[in-house]
């Protein structure tokens, strides 16, 4: 688990490090971001990628960061996908790099 402000992922914090920590999970692993981080920022401070590309071997880590390219969609354990660059991190988010095992869910 990475301490808030310490980076072992793709991104590096340069400023604004005095914010409250926010806990979340990514692919089941507990990680910590800071209040005001986007989901993209929080994941990529600890990891190198958000997901795998659907049409090639590459990893994906976002591209435009302004909601235009749609490169940064990630999954959540409870279903709905979200655009990581424009979604603020919230306490307890359970994020996934790929679809949950039970997807699409069968309704009872």
């Amino acid at each position, binding site marked *: 688990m990475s301490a808030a402000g310490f980076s072992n992922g*793709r*991104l590096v914090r340069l400023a604004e490090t005095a914010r409250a920590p926010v806990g979340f999970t990514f692919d089941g692993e507990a990680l910590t971001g800071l209040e005001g981080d986007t989901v993209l920022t929080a994941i990529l401070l600890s990891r190198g990628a958000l997901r795998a590309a659907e049409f090639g071997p590459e990893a994906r880590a976002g591209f435009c960061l302004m909601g235009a390219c749609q*490169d940064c969609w990630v999954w959540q354990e409870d279903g709905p996908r979200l655009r990581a660059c424009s979604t603020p991190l919230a306490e307890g988010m359970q994020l996934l790099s790929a679809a949950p095992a039970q997807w699409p869910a069968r309704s009872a």
Partner: protein
Amino acid sequence: MSRVLIVGAGPAGIRAAETLAGAGLHPVVVDEAARAGGQIYRRPPEGFTRPPEKLYGSEAAKARALHGTFDALVAEGRITHLSGRSVLALRDGVAYVLGEAREQVRHDRLILATGATDRLAPVPGWQAGGVYSLGAAQIALKSQGVALGRRIVLAGTGPLLTLLASQLQAAGAQVAAVLDTAPWRAQLTGGVGMALARPLVTLRGLRLRVGLGRIYHAGVTLERIETDDSGPSAILWRDARGRRHETRCDMVGLGWHLRADGTLADIAGARFDWDRAFHQWLPRADALGRAGEGLYLAGDGLRILGADGAELAGQVAAVACLQDLGLPHPDPAPLLRRLARMRRFAEAMARAFPWPAEAIGRLPDDTVVCRCEGVRAGDLRNTLPLSGPEANRAKSLGRVGMGRCQGRYCQLAGAEIIAAASGRPPSEVGRLRAQPPARPAPIGAWLSEAASECEAEAE
């Protein structure tokens, strides 16, 4: 009373809202961000502490003024701000809006101030995670206080290339190289025109450039981005004298100035013309931004004049709207004179930092053109015997422009490849028609209850 809807809360949208509110109207402003400001004056989330001087440098006073104007209009109840929402579609006076839930906003008149995105040219290897647009690197720095890598190379051309490199360095990031594809000769001839139109702005840019020193290279040819499992590992390039270089890096930022985002303008019924100065399709509008019945365009989504030009264009579009409503309005003449100067500057800048059309036409067959779906230049070329040299047909059969970004980042390069392969100018290849939804919309949004209706009302 007329219901006016403004889409976009950047410099153009904010000034349009202010002008309409000044005439007693109560516009509704829809914007994707949580806080108004647009991209160039984008604000960090609440609770961040860097002052505007740190975020916006020489433009801090303008940013403060815009943010202050908008916040005051909202606080005084003179405009309605629908933040964190995207307009997906427009039809028969209704905007279909998606945020936390679906909404329908009825309106009589529409001002689109949707701005621009980075204009991208493919570079072999650019599909790797860890390659970003230049705008992305600036957004990350401004609104999140992060660098997108430890050893950064910025490549492409345009004013953002130099500005971003300086901003990253000042914030403590390591910029290994700044690779400008614009040759010195183009920069000199264009630069003279820029200096004549806006000497101070040109001088400021020059000073930033000089400050970069030896990491800056002009007239560069980009060969490819080397990648490994973790993303970019190096960029291979040739300098203006043809010598090969390899620069190690873990992040590459790419961008060739800006591309007007005409998606909603197209859906709203605007017509488009090929603009030779900006080398892209731009919506057709009169001098005040009228683009159709009750449709007005402003800002970089209409003409790429930058933030100062967008503030003027926003006011001018609002004036056009007030004129059409028969309401008292400010005199547009002084605004139009200033806009003309912005336009001279922007056209000179387009000459100084040209789009690398020939280089794109020559890209190797295995270069990914469509980053969404991994469609390569060779795939596109092989589609042409079947589709013919027309952008929409080539999209249907070859899928360049069919992916999630809806062609925003590949269609200009795709058109150059089709043009070069078929021996015609890109203007004859045509322009991808925009399709709603303008943003991907989760199907779940339609499974829940009906959309709430709201009216862009007037006083």
